[in-house]
């Protein structure tokens, strides 16, 4: 049986899905949508029945407000394929008042259903004792009490699938108001009846009919309704369902206890600190600092290990195959390319591990609560802050992290903003330029050499942050204009995160990155290698002859395009550097080193700094000045010199349109900004 697993967010649906499927699950896409779908077969420990589970995104209502919520409805209705044979509805026993609303909606769809009354342990602790049998009598479908966290009740649940049947939650028909009766009659005449009519009315009221996959005749019938009547009817539908919920809660004997939100008692005390005006923000900054420092601390050595491992394999292969074109293709193309992909795995894994734990614990909802004011000024939801912030470490996991943003347009806006945040790869560039060209003599210092350099570095970071926010503001008002999404955010109870669940997510995301972005990164690596190493003529390194990189196609192009980089104060060597840095920003340093004739594995930037400082042109004027250095830094603040970013955006947006736009727009902005800095500086007499 194909069983769709539906439920509100924060009810432990993921835990239950993982319990049911064990490690047997795959991640794909819902047909025609950018929302991810997790599917899996029944884990062998529960039996050998050929059940397949589809994990639907958590949703508060069948009437979707965003694409990922629409998925739940479309899947259950079988809009994009055959509908599931059964529905597993997961409810949070400690939060029944709202969960039952969604339950009623799902039951209205009329599919064979089984209810998992989850988190009964937490409910019991809060003094809420829900009798599964009584609930079964109310809803008309099998109800099984479960604790997904521990696996309690899952065997009973699996046995219950055989008894799945459509529920009988008929709304109290005597309670139906006039407006609703009239509208239902209208739709009945047009051929839309029963449960279908009810949620189509709500969708029509909320202007989300296009998400529902309604047929043209249904759409026409809905359009024919008077708007005010439609709204009056929708309000009655919602109110009616909640009256029904209240009746059920009375029958179950939990109505009074639930009112005081007992499940949130401990969380309220914790929130008094974590959302406190002062301590809350301090707590947030501390948490984020902890996450980023840990990532740096743990990921960095792993990245080093991977780089070493790939360097070693390169050498092994060179020795085995001997010098030559084929060897270079394998070592500098293939092995380097695979290395370039895997080098991101530690950062992706670490970031998603930490964020997954924070999400599972319930803290990220508080973070969204704290930051919503800032984000909504840009027109974004508070949830957009964390992916943006992650961009300071590395854009790749940050862009992957925009999945939490429900609105497609807002997700793209955030993805377009992230590369502007100064990622850690820009640091070697800033360090090189500042170290080479600024405060080279102590007497030049304004405050002190290190303070000056630090301030300069800080101003680059400030510039990038402000630019990211400005670009977001612009995009939200122009090409990706959409209204600020509503907040209406549930703050779930704090819970101990399930590490097993998070690790599964980390695995899924890492695999998705390697498969989705890996080929693109590998391809770019090989192309760049070819451009910067062909034609393969024998030249001398350093000395009088041109260096190998200078004589390459890339080098020749850079030389002939020198007039293009001159207005921003750069020369052809930097031109080659910019070309090479498309692989990754920090590659500018090594490529520039090669252009100055240094040995490829010479990691010492001091030599390169000297070379840049002392470089003079034919008439003896320095090639690199403070102004040209500043222009170059500003160029790198804005330029999208990262093939991996392009690859990830391509994967997340499922196409080349957005990555191409991002790359072209950022390069143009980078050039113009550098132009303004350099030419403007010259006009002002800074030479």
């Amino acid at each position, binding site marked *: 049986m194909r069983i769709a697993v539906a439920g509100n967010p924060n009810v432990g649906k993921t835990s239950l899905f993982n319990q049911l499927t064990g490690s047997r699950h795959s991640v794909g896409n819902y047909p025609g949508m950018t929302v991810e779908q997790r599917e899996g077969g029944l884990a062998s420990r529960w039996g050998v029945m050929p059940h397949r589970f589809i994990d639907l995104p958590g949703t508060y209502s069948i009437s979707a407000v965003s694409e990922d919520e629409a998925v739940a409805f479309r899947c259950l209705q079988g809009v994009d394929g055959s509908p599931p044979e059964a529905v597993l509805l997961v409810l949070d026993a400690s939060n029944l008042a709202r969960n039952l609303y969604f339950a009623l909606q799902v039951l209205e769809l009329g599919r064979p259903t089984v209810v998992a009354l989850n988190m009964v342990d937490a409910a019991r602790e809060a003094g809420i004792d829900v009798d599964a049998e009584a609930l079964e009598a109310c809803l008309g479908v099998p109800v099984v009490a479960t604790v997904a966290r521990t696996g309690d009740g899952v065997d009973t649940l699996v046995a219950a699938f055989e008894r799945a049947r459509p529920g009988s939650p008929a709304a109290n028909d005597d309670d139906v108001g006039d407006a609703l009766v009239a509208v239902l009659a209208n739709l009945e005449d047009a051929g839309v009846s029963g449960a279908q009519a009810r949620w189509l009315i709500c969708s029509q009221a909320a202007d989300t009919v296009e998400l529902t996959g309604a047929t043209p005749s249904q759409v026409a019938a809905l359009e024919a309704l008077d708007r005010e009547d439609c709204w009056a009817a929708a309000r009655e539908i919602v109110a009616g369902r909640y009256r029904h919920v209240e009746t059920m809660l009375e029958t179950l004997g939990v109505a009074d206890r639930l*009112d005081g939100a007992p499940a949130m008692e401990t969380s309220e005390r914790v929130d008094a600190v974590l*959302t406190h005006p002062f301590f809350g923000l301090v707590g947030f900054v501390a948490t984020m600092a902890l996450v980023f420092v840990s990532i740096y601390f743990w990921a960095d050595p792993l990245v080093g290990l991977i780089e070493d491992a790939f360097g070693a394999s390169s050498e092994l292969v060179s020795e085995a195959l001997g010098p030559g074109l084929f060897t270079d293709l394998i070592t500098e193309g293939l092995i380097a390319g695979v290395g370039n992909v895997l080098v991101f795995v530690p950062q992706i894994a670490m970031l998603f591990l930490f964020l997954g734990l924070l999400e599972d614990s319930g803290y990220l909802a508080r973070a969204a609560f704290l930051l*919503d004011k800032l984000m909504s000024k840009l027109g974004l939801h508070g949830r957009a802050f964390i992916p943006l912030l992650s961009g300071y470490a590395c854009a790749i996991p940050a862009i992957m992290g925009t999945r939490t943003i429900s609105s497609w347009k807002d997700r793209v806006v955030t993805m377009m903003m992230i590369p502007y945040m100064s990622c850690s790869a820009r640091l070697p560039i800033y360090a090189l330029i500042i170290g080479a060209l600024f405060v080279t003599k102590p007497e030049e210092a304004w405050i002190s050499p290190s303070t000056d350099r630090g301030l300069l570095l800080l101003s680059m970071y400030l510039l990038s942050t402000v630019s990211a926010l400005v670009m977001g503001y612009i995009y939200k008002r122009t090409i990706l204009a959409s209204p600020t999404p*509503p907040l*209406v955010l549930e703050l779930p109870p704090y819970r101990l995160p399930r590490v097993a669940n998070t690790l599964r997510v980390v695995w899924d995301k890492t695999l998705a990155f390697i498969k989705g972005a890996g080929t693109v990164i590998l391809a770019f690596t090989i192309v760049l290698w070819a451009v910067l190493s062909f034609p393969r003529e024998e030249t001398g390194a350093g000395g009088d002859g041109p260096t190998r990189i200078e004589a390459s196609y890339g080098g020749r192009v850079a030389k002939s395009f020198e007039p293009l980089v001159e207005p921003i104060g750069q020369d052809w060597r930097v031109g080659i550097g910019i070309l090479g840095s498309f692989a990754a920003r920090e590659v500018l340093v090594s490529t520039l080193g090669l252009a100055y004739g240094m040995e490829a594995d010479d990691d010492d930037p001091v030599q390169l700094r000297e070379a840049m400082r002392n470089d003079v042109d034919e008439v003896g004027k320095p090639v690199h000045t403070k102004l040209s250095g500043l222009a170059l830094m500003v160029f790198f603040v804005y330029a999208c010199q990262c093939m991996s970013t392009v690859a990830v955006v391509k994967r997340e947006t499922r196409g080349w349109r957005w990555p191409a736009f991002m790359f072209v727009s950022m390069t143009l902005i980078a050039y113009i900004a550098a132009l303004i800095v350099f030419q403007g500086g010259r006009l002002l007499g800074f030479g």
Partner: protein
Amino acid sequence: MLRLMPTAATLEVGQSGVVSTVEGTDTTTLRLLEMGLVEGTAITLIRRAPTGDPLQFRVRGFHLSLRTSEAHRVRLEGPTS
């Protein structure tokens, strides 16, 4: 003195009210209704975020966070304590 229409946004911290209606005819209105803010529902203001926005409420046994603009749509019958 101008009498402010009581809404969820005009509640004092710790104060409760009873929902009379939710203003508006858009997606947000429907979402507010479906989260349980129908007529007759009790709603309590727990706190405001550090900068005054958004607000955190207790509704039907769970905690719901709304922006001030969203909370203003939630008209109350008259605050009780």
